[in-house]
């Protein structure tokens, strides 16, 4: 795919590429230059929050640089400015123990440090440079998640700060085996990315794979983990999300304990879990908080919901268009009465109503909460009722479409639920042309596609393509807790059992 795209774009891309290389060379020249005050000032020209302070203490001319917007003013005051006045000679480490020394020929690294919220102390007389971490940008407080809500269990959610997110996990898993590897992504944006795993459980291959993929990314900046996720996918063109995104620390914790890897990024409240399987997208940690009986029932409803969404409306189309013999007499009577005035073929009727539902959902999502719910009611009741009364659609179809729309929201992953809604249109259109034959062709394609997908090298459709048969006990069904003592096969954990076997 990429090769075709590049073939098409060859001319444009090549010229641009040459241009960019030249630009890059200009920037690269700056590396390893000598640090001078002019050079620093030059770099931060027109950066309005760049502050340069000068002071003189005990015959030492001290220059201080920092970016006002991302440092914590109180830290600067208490731990830097106040102690600096006590300085004697150049023994800065005595008064500010956490200062780090910088070499004079590291201009680019100094600039980097300033950008990352360090304050630079330049001692002009004794020709020394130090940096002190004063990073403290404004942050959102920890609150509950809007997208993943639950009745039971912890309510806290990740925020946009990487530090906070790491600490939310660390306070849940207090183990030195919980490792965090960090790197920086984005040539311009330089965002911190870390991934966490439990060293004694997570599979080595997976860890290396994640590290390699993160290092291979070349981009100017990443807005959110949702984008990062798309850049490290095994099949970037697939319709399905192959990694789970979650805003909830408890979800991340459950996957970490299962031997998976959590990737988190600054500025992004979602954590990527990899590898994930298809069924993981349908499950939620609330299944484990609830009693096992209820949880099992809910899970079955979710899986059934998947098939209902993709097959229900398309079956309406194919039965009404091609296979009227399948209707029992009373159902036929109902359907033909409600269809009698509709001037469109069933395909058009269904596509129309499905699109209306999609529009309603989108309009509701982009509106403020109060307006959004009003739109839902107006759309659902007013349009629905009026369309039926006008004879534009059959009332049975409204019921069917509503059920299928509701069922599409059952998966716990929002991305999965969007993917399902999209696939549904393949089914409807092919049912319109080829009836059930078309529906099952698409179903066959869908299932084969799913079986071929991998998530970080692990089969995505896992309990269906068995890794370990015990996956059914945890991912598909949910055993009562005293029996549940295995990790999933998908994570290929080093330790398979969660507790020693044979203990009473």
């Amino acid at each position: 795919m990429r090769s075709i795209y590049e073939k098409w774009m060859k001319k444009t891309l090549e010229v641009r590429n040459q241009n960019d290389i030249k630009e890059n060379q200009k920037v690269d020249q700056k590396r390893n230059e000598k640090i001078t005050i002019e050079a620093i000032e030059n770099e931060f020209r027109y950066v309005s929050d760049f502050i340069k302070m000068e002071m003189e203490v005990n015959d030492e001319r001290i220059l201080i640089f920092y970016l006002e917007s991302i440092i914590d003013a109180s830290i600067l005051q208490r731990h830097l400015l106040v102690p600096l006045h006590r300085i004697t000679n150049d023994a800065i480490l005595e008064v500010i123990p956490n200062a780090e020394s910088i070499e004079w020929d590291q201009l680019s690294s100094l600039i980097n440090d300033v950008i990352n919220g360090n304050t630079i102390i330049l001692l002009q007389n004794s020709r020394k440079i130090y940096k002190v971490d004063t990073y403290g940008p404004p942050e959102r407080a920890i609150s509950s998640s809007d997208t993943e809500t639950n009745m039971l269990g912890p309510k806290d959610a990740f925020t946009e700060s990487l530090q906070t997110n790491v600490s939310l996990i660390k306070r849940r898993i207090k183990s030195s085996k919980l490792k965090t590897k960090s790197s920086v992504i984005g040539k311009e944006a330089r965002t911190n990315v870390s991934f966490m795993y439990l060293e004694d459980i997570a599979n080595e291959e997976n860890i290396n794979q994640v590290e390699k993929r993160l290092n291979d990314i070349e981009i100017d900046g990443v807005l959110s983990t949702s984008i990062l996720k798309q850049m490290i996918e095994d099949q970037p063109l697939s319709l399905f999300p192959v990694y789970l995104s979650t805003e909830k620390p408890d979800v991340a914790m459950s996957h970490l304990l299962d031997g998976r890897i959590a990737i988190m990024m600054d500025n992004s409240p979602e954590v990527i879990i990899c590898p994930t399987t298809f069924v993981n997208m349908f499950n939620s940690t609330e299944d484990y908080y609830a009693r096992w009986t209820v949880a099992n029932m809910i899970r079955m409803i979710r899986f059934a919901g998947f098939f209902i969404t993709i097959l229900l409306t398309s079956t309406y189309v194919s039965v009404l268009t091609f296979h009227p013999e399948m209707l029992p007499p009373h159902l036929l009577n109902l359907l033909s009465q409600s269809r009698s005035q509709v001037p469109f073929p069933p395909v058009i009727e269904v596509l129309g109503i499905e699109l209306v539902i999609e529009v309603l959902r989108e309009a509701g999502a982009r509106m403020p909460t109060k307006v959004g719910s009003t739109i839902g009611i107006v759309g659902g009741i007013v349009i629905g009722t009026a369309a039926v009364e006008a004879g534009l659609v059959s009332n049975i179809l409204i019921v069917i479409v509503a059920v299928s729309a509701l069922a599409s929201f059952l998966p716990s992953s929002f991305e999965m639920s969007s993917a399902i809604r999209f696939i549904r249109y393949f089914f409807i259109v092919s049912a319109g042309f080829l009836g059930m034959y078309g529906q099952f062709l698409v179903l066959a394609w869908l299932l084969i596609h799913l079986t071929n997908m991998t998530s970080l090298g692990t089969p995505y459709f896992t309990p269906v393509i068995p890794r370990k048969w015990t996956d059914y006990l945890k991912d598909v069904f949910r055993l009562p807790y005293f029996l549940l003592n295995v990790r999933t096969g998908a994570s290929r954990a080093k330790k398979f059992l969660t507790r020693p076997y044979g203990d009473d």
Partner: protein
Amino acid sequence: MDKGKMEKLNNYHVLFLIQNVMISMNFIRLPHVIHESGRDMWLIPIAMGVIVQLLLIPMLMLCGRFPNETLFSINRKLVGKYLGTFINLLLILYMVISVTSIVDDFIEVIQTIALGRVNKTLLFIPLLLLTLYILSGGIKTVARTCVLAFFMTVWMIYFLNWTFEPAKFTSVIPLFEVGAKPFFHSLFLGFESMLGFELVLFFFPFIINKKESFKYVTGGVWLTVFIYTLVCLACVVYFSEWQIGNIRYPILSILRAVEFSFIERIESLGLSLWIFLILSTISAYLWVAKRGITDLSSGKSQSWQAYLVVMLVTIIFFLPIDRVTRETLYEWNRYFAFSFILILPTFLLITNLFRGGKPS
């Protein structure tokens, strides 16, 4: 995870590959085809199973002597370059024509039963494209399609209890009511529904656990035999002899009697589900044909080879020849298959033994 490795097929892959390649269009009319054997028809699948079992012995012995080679390269090695290539070309042609006949048959049934108003091209092209998609994934995807096909369709056996309900099991006895001649004639006619197991000659090098493969191949064959027997038994109980002789697709007629409060007459549904069984069969055959072309050309698997075999199927499918010629073509193809599975493996095995060939 097993990219780059030659050996990709687990034990259960082997079982379902064999089983689902065997079940395709022929199954849908099997009871009708063997109706001459009357009330003894359910014994025919068992007899066929025994024959297949016997045929498998030389096949797997041959494979065991060349564990890393498909029949194509074994051919060239044992009978010489030119004759071997000629046989390989015939084999490729056999695979392609088999696929065409299956697809042709399937589309004809779909048109009669479910989609009378849709034209042939529209039914043909998506099916073949989907096959192309499976082919691009290699033998493992083909095997996975087979596993999927099994689980997607096996629950239809439940509907056989519609037929068993009226307690007419005495229809089965007395055994051996018909004479030997009609019995063996139906055995011969019905044997085409066992075709497919010969593909083990081609995917054997891809099996991980070669030592145990005989067990799983046998398992696949007898699973098929079990399903065939069950269906034939249902047909004996449910239909009168006149009915079996006159109904072309007895399985669909059984599905036609199904009744639920929300749906009934699910023969269209059943036929659409049959897509899985068709896909598993034709993609396996085409994979073998593609493998043959790979062997003829460079030895490297490339995507144009898949396109080529699919194009061949398309050309034969749309060839402007009349129905009778077409049927003759398919019939000759069937005879070729019979002689090929009967003679070739034994012949090659004997050649190898004569030359004192070392089992590699």
